[in-house]
């Protein structure tokens, strides 16, 4: 143990000497974790004991790495082809290198199409291990293991939740549907997996063939469909595969050595890990506690946990106590974008609440009026709304676009700083005067149509969350600024169970807050919620916005399964997204096209950006956020690679000092990667 620390320190000092030479940023440059970031933990602040202790309050629900869509339990246990570094750039992991090329293929209709082929050259000699660290026979991690994963996911009988993420592989969707038919006995011959564009070219060479070029393909590989599975083990385990720590195989930085249900699980550093120099944490102890969230802050003070979120209600107390104040820092803004929606397909009961009559006809008339929508867009006080989540630094979390900052960049500029979005980003979106101008125009136009005022807006909220306060603050603020004789909000609380299914997706609202999280590293991901097929604001229902058609029309797309079974075409937003995503070679062009799409969305005022409420608030942690692998999607932030446990939790001052350093370094690296034409 002592020897290891000495070694670690020696290494730290050495790298400090070297790192100090060519550094441009500030900081002392003593680096262990964080891959040469000036924001990394300095050697004197490295804890002797590299043990992470955590509390968890709900039992691990998905042990099967092939099945889940969001679980990150095994993020440290199995590696993927690529991984993110601590600046948010993709780098080799189990794949040492890769190439991509276009090729021509014949699609199902017999047409010639241009596809994209990625060939990954795998790291050789990585062996599969059991939970206790012993090798699983002679089995190595080979190209065939990814084919096994894809085969399992694309077998409908397994009911995988991620099958559609593979549908742009050549032949994948057809294979999936054929398998369904084969299972139902409609066809007699089992479809051949060789028709799917996922093949092992050789033992260490894996080929993936896409139906069209995908500029953000690497970022998609960090999802669980991009993880290898040992075919021999899968077959051997059968139904038991992926039901506990002993029925999965490991090739990652940590091994889950012990697990007892509702009690604890212990992860230990894998001594055979291929990149062990970058793994500094020796052990991760996870203790079950039903009240983990409530207890964590106290447990942290006693030194029993490494990380604790400080509940909003306790922040005051912590900040007032000088000793405790030293232990906490603001959270890094999350990657989820929160916004308000105007619903264009109201389905709520037309009932009377508090003397106000809800009416679909009235709301639809108002929602169809651009000036009405704009009066709300410019009349919503974002900062005051965010204060419900973080009363101290709400500005940090404000968003003026749907796409959050630090998500993607081109030509050395962050997406949110593009000229196309200037109109929305360079001025505050809370301008009462402007809002009132729009209001007056809306009153004039709507009165002419025979609409009566106030417009009654139905606003549901989730009862067991901060949304209670948010709903009250926002509704009162808008009513005060625009007049309650103009708009009157009727609030109704719903429990968290099935909240979104009952409210937003069902169209059971007029005006409500919701959110979206990115699925891959491309601005296209932020257009998804507002496009056909999604249950957000159903804005294709607006008068003259799109043409309604039926299911026999080849151009028609369904509104949304289960909730809006109508078919639509000529929806300008859809068309703009399609056009923008057609540009796959010139990233700068592509991003600017998406910026235009977003400007169009904001200009129509059917959705109003709010902030990144997900990461709001304060926390106390012995880990350095700038050392952790960074990506707004996938499981990167749950991986412990590069991270060290510090002697003391990071305080606010240090955090605020290091944040700009890290941001500058990140921008620098992205610019460099772009200049070199590297995929990242």
């Amino acid at each position, binding site marked *: 143990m002592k020897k290891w620390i000495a070694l670690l320190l020696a290494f730290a000092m050495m790298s400090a000497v070297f790192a100090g030479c060519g550094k441009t940023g500030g900081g002392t440059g003593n680096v262990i974790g964080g891959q040469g970031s000036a924001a990394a933990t300095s050697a004197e602040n490295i804890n002797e004991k590299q043990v992470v202790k955590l509390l968890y309050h709900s*039992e*691990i*629900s*998905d*042990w*099967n790495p092939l*099945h*889940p*869509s*969001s679980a990150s339990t095994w993020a440290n246990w199995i590696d993927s082809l690529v991984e993110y570094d601590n600046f948010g750039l993709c780098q080799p992991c189990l794949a040492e290198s890769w190439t991509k090329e276009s090729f021509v293929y014949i699609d199902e209709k017999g047409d010639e199409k241009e596809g994209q082929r990625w060939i990954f050259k795998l790291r050789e000699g990585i062996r599969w291990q059991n939970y206790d660290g012993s090798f699983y026979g002679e089995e190595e991690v080979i190209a065939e293991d990814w084919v096994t994963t894809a085969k399992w996911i694309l077998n*409908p*009988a*397994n*009911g*995988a*939740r*991620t*099958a*559609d993420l593979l*549908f742009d592989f050549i032949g994948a*969707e057809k294979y*999936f*549907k054929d398998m*369904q038919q084969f299972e139902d006995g409609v066809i007699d011959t089992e479809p051949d997996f060789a028709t799917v564009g996922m093949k092992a070219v050789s033992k260490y060479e894996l080929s993936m063939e896409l139906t069209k070029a995908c500029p953000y393909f690497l970022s998609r590989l960090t999802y669980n469909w991009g993880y290898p599975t040992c075919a021999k083990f899968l077959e051997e385990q059968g*139904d038991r595969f*992926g*039901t*506990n720590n002993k029925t999965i195989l490991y090739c990652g930085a940590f091994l889950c050595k012990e697990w007892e*249900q*509702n*009690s604890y699980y212990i992860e230990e550093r894998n001594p055979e890990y291929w990149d062990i120099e970058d793994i500094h944490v020796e052990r991760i102890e996870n203790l*079950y*506690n*039903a*009240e983990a969230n409530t*207890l964590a802050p106290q447990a942290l003070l006693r030194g029993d946990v490494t990380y604790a979120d400080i509940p909003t209600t306790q922040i005051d107390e912590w900040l007032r106590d000088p000793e405790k104040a030293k232990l906490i820092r603001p959270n890094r803004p999350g990657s989820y974008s929160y916004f308000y929606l105007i619903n264009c397909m109201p389905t709520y009961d037309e009932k009377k609440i508090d003397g106000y009559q809800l009416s679909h006809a009235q709301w639809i008339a108002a929602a169809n009026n651009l000036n009405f929508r704009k009066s709300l867009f410019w009349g919503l006080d974002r900062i005051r709304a965010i204060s419900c989540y973080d009363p101290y630094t709400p500005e940090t979390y404000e968003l003026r676009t749907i796409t959050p900052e630090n998500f993607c960049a081109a030509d050395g500029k962050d997406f949110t700083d593009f000229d196309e979005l200037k109109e929305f980003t360079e001025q505050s979106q809370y301008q009462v005067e402007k809002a009132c101008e729009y209001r007056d125009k809306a009153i004039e136009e709507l009165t002419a149509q025979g609409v009566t005022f106030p417009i009654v807006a139905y606003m549901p909220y989730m009862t067991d969350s901060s949304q209670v306060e948010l709903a009250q603050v926002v509704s009162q603020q808008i009513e005060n600024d625009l007049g309650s004789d103009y708009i009157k909000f009727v609030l109704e609380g719903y429990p968290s*169970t*099935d909240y*979104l*299914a*009952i409210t937003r*997706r069902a169209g059971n609202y007029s005006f409500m807050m919701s959110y*979206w999280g990115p*699925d891959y590293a491309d601005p296209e991901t932020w257009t*998804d*919620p507002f496009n056909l*097929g*999604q*249950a957000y604001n159903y804005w294709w229902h607006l008068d003259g916005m799109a043409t309604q058609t039926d299911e026999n029309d080849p151009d028609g797309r*369904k509104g949304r*399964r*289960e909730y809006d079974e109508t078919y639509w075409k000529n929806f300008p937003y859809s068309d703009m997204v399609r056009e923008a995503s057609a540009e796959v070679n010139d990233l700068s062009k592509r991003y600017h096209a998406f910026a235009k799409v977003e400007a169009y969305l904001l200009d129509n005022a059917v959705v109003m950006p709010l902030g990144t409420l997900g990461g709001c608030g304060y926390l106390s942690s012995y880990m350095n956020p700038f050392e952790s692998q960074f990506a707004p999607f996938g499981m990167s932030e749950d991986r412990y690679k590069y991270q060290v446990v510090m002697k003391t939790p990071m305080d606010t001052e240090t955090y605020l000092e290091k944040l700009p350093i890290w941001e500058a370094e990140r921008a620098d690296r992205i610019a460099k990667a772009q200049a070199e034409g590297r995929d990242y």
Partner: protein
Amino acid sequence: MITMFLVLSIVFMLMRLLPTDTYFGGRSDSMSDTVKENILKQLGLFDPWYVQLGNFWKKLLLHGDLGESIVIQQGAKCVDLIIPKAKWSFQFGAIAMIFQMLIGYSMGVMMARWKGRFFDSLGNLYILLINALPAAVYFLFIQIYVSKALGLPMLFERYNPVSRILPILCLSLGGIASNAMWMRRYMVDQMNLDYIRLARAKGMTSSQVAFRHVMRNAFIPMAQSLPTTLLFTISGSLYVESLFSIPGMGGLLITSIQRQDNTMVQAMVLLYSAISVIGLLLGDIMMMICDPRISLTKKGGSR
């Protein structure tokens, strides 16, 4: 048996009326329709209700298979999820029940014996306080202040036997109060009956009367509920378990319903309805043992 069949079938049908979004994990908004429909199909939710119900009963009766959890811990057998939790709850519940009986009954007996005296008033004060105060208040008081005063851990720790004291105390308090209250009541009732007066008149000592006649008769109405209470300790206490972080059953049914883990809900409903039925049966047998006047078989003749 018929009761269990009906209860389970009704719950089975009700679970099928809920929205389907929970089956898609966190991807409800971004998952394609093809995949969604496939998941529902694999869960058998597209079959007509009688086919679904039939399959469920066939699996249960022929193979004793309650199925696998679909949300709480995907792929794990429901039984494997329930048994370890039930063990914890039963362990705590059974110990607490022993205390409830020992302390509760003796308290009731003493209160009845010295009715109207100081001990009786003290006992009544305790009963009143426990019943009047919301449990949450004194549980929290015990967790925060009593743990500090006695130097006991605030949370349950698996390998630390001392940490079990406070949860067991919390679990016992309510039961002690009600056991004492009913024991006292039934005993006071009995003491005023003629046969007791006769026994006294015959010259039996008051303690002989109290134990041989009064207590035995007073115990009969309480005996019936004992087996059910004991069996139901496995369902755990929602509040105490979450307060002291005991990995028991408390809240599992609620969580399963909220997260729409249909198979788990069915397994637990089956378990609970079985307990109710068996508990009632055992209760009747207990009554029969305590009271020779009651018989489960028909006796002809006497009227």
